[in-house]
């Protein structure tokens, strides 16, 4: 075992030296055929499934709900396939590879969310619902009004999430195989549309199942390869993680000055301790609330419960989904730490700053590295899984948005529920095409935009608008139409509004200042005396940039004088000079060992030059892009709302307004229907039955 470890470390050293530059895509040109073959195979299989599903997709129940004939276990896999987006597959593994413990902690909320789904949402929704969230709300509230609001909220949430998926997918495919962003977005969009329009929910379900199985298989293989050398022992594996020099270097980089006094062991151990990434606990709690309550309000997740025949099957499906999703997140701990140890955090971050390439690079490494056939096959496989992931999630979202548009708005409101069955199916397909087109257009328009916050925003809106409405309709006797409308409108607008004035937005002044720092360098900072800790003046100061606020600051030790930093141009000149003298000196070195060391130094300087050039280009770009601008699109110079996640404020507000609106108005229908709703949601009497096939 030890021998193998040594061999790994040796090959690693060779690996990091040989890899100075990284081309347009992670897959080298000579291996692209392999990636495309795996992509092609997956597309062929899913197309065959769609063809098969299309033969039994004629009625609305078949189109929206797969005839309610999906079994509990199948639906469990499909929920996992619907939910585990590229953000969780690549993103969380990436966060762990860069920040250790905090990345893993981040993944917990995504599983805990399903407890809410299991306990309060899945079974009642199956018993009451038909195709959409609007159906559940319209059961006892004014059908037309609530359907309009529910559909708008569904479309809003889906569009946010969809945009994040399309942009993320386009960037991902470009990074992996170098296909143009626009072509990737169109490709994903068209493929997804074929599944949805022809195969409806049945094809979508099976695409999601296939994707979930592929994802779990790929992760299991990688984790086995990472963990096996340690005899599947957790302590000895983590011992190796902590003792790894690349991980220690990454922690030292993250900690900056305070790392100077730490031993390598302490640095490595720090990787398994909290606080390297998540700095603001209140923001964390705010995000946690949005996840735990928002998942149960996500329209594409709710919709999955209409596809099973009974409430019992809905229960089974959540249990399976929790097993698969939770198991997957536990695996990400190994994927992330394994990538950090074997590939190295620095290299992962150099390909993609967010760490998204940790999983794919790990696969390539485990297969034998970037010039080996097996390494590239494994990379191709993981890339194909990532592609399947995007398509499956996007298909679920489009179906949810299309059902709100066609079933709630067109059939329910415009046609007053008098559309013929045939008209309804046509409407559903047309709506899918419209939503798909919107997704492609928005995806292309949002190229290069910062969309990472849109996923969190989608969850926040779902938790502040959809969940209070659905939950209180199902469980609170006094809940009524006014309350629902008030709560949903205010809840979602608050969530969106707060994000618009939050640090998620781009603030040109800060960007320009940062770019100038890169280009012009920074003046020397004089030595500072130690300062005591400062306490914040009020809790509200944590949330809003109010006048007269004092923010909490930890005590600071005295710091030495910091030298001035050079501007990018001067730094480049200096580095080039250094490189030249080193290259001149190289042939004169006789000693073999010294020569290798000198060569490594040269490679390092070359890397520095590349990084500086990149930073310089970005800074120049930023200056051009934001020239003359001083404020964000909301007219702010700096964020007014200080959290990235609005849930802490918008979720309680959503609940409160449903309650207030219901208490202060009378709604005869909502009262009369309560007995029926409550009995039905608990017993399943008169629930929509499965259609026989």
């Amino acid at each position: 075992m030890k021998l193998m470890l040594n061999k790994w470390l040796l090959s690693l050293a060779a690996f990091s030296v040989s890899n100075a530059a990284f081309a347009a895509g992670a897959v080298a040109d000579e291996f692209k055929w392999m990636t495309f073959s795996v992509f092609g195979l997956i597309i062929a299989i899913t197309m065959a499934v769609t063809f098969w599903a299309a033969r039994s997709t004629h009625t609305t129940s078949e189109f929206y709900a797969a005839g309610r004939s999906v079994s509990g276990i199948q639906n469990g896999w499909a929920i996992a396939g619907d939910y585990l987006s590229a953000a969780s597959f690549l993103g969380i593994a990436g966060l762990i590879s860069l920040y250790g413990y905090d990345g893993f902690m981040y993944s917990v909320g995504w599983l805990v969310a399903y407890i809410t789904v299991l306990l309060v949402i899945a079974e009642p929704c199956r018993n009451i619902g038909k195709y959409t969230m609007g159906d559940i709300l319209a059961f006892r509230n004014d059908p037309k009004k609530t359907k309009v609001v529910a559909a708008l909220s569904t479309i809003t949430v889906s569009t946010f999430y969809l945009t994040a998926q399309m942009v993320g997918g386009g960037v991902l495919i470009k990074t992996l195989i170098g296909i143009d962003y626009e072509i990737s977005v169109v490709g994903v969009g068209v493929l997804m549309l074929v599944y949805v329009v022809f195969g409806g929910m049945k094809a979508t379900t099976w695409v999601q199942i296939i994707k979930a199985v592929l994802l779990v298989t790929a992760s299991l293989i990688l984790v086995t390869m990472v963990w096996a050398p340690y005899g599947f022992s957790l302590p000895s594996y983590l011992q190796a993680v902590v003792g790894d020099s690349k991980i220690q270097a990454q922690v030292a980089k993250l900690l900056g000055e305070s790392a100077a006094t730490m031993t390598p062991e302490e640095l490595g151990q720090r990787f398994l301790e909290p606080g390297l990434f998540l700095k603001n606990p209140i923001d964390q709690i705010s995000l946690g609330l949005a996840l735990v309550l928002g998942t149960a309000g996500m329209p594409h997740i709710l919709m999955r419960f209409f596809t099973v025949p009974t409430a019992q099957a809905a229960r089974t499906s959540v249990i399976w989904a929790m097993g698969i999703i939770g198991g997957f997140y536990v695996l990400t701990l190994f994927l992330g730490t394994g990538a950090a140890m074997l590939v190295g955090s620095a290299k992962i971050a150099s390909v993609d700053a967010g760490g998204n390439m940790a999983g794919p690079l790990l696969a390539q490494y485990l297969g034998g590295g970037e010039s080996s056939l097996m390494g590239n096959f494994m990379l191709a496989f993981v890339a194909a899984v990532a592609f399947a992931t995007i398509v499956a999630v996007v298909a679920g979202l489009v179906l949810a948005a299309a059902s709100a548009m066609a079933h709630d708005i067109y059939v329910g409101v415009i046609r007053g529920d008098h559309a013929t069955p045939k008209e309804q199916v046509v409407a559903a397909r047309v709506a899918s095409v419209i939503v798909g087109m919107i997704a492609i257009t928005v995806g292309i328009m949002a190229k290069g935009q910062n969309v990472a916050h849109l996923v969190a925003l989608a969850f926040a809106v779902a938790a502040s608008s959809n969940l209070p409405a659905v939950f209180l309709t199902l469980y609170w006797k006094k809940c009524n139409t006014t309350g629902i409308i008030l709560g949903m409108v205010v809840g979602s607008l608050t969530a969106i509004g707060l994000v618009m004035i939050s640090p998620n937005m781009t603030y040109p002044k800060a960007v320009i200042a940062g770019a100038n720092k890169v280009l012009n360098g920074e003046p020397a900072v004089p030595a500072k005396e130690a300062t005591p800790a400062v306490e914040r003046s009020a809790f509200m100061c944590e949330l809003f940039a109010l006048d007269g606020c004092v923010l909490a600051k930890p005590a600071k030790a005295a710091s030495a004088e910091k030298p001035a930093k050079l501007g990018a141009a001067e730094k480049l000149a200096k580095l080039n000079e250094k490189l030249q003298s080193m290259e001149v000196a190289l042939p004169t070195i006789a000693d073999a060992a010294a020569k290798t060391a000198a060569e490594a130094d040269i490679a390092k300087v070359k890397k520095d030059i590349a990084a500086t050039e990149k930073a310089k280009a970005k800074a120049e770009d930023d200056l051009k892009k934001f020239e003359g601008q001083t404020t964000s699109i909301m007219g702010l110079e700096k964020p007014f709302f200080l959290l990235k996640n609005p849930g802490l404020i918008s979720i309680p507000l959503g609940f409160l307004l449903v309650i207030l609106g219901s208490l202060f108005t009378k709604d005869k229908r909502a009262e009369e229907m309560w007995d029926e709703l409550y009995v039905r949601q608990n017993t399943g009497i008169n629930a929509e039955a499965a259609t026989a096939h």
Partner: protein
Amino acid sequence: MSNPNINWAAIDTHPKFQALHRKKTFFLWGLMVFSIIYYFMLPIGAAYFQDLFKIKVWGVINVGLLFALSEFVVAWTIAFIYSKKANAEFDAMTQDIINDVNSGSIK
């Protein structure tokens, strides 16, 4: 099973349904509240009790890591407990009520 003439109010006030309602409410709220408290202990602990989270208990594995892993185990346990209870008890009680409705003994 579709029967338009069901008297929903009668079912709602029937002792059997009330018993189901009470049992479910108590059980579901209990699990829900516990799971939410247990979940938020993780970010709160990671932020405010770092000294505790850093204590090594099993090789290099510290309290924080074990606590994060325990979140998974607890979530699965809650799912298991709920499904056991629902399969064994709630489903039978529900079926009993449905049978009574179908046979006409609840009107």
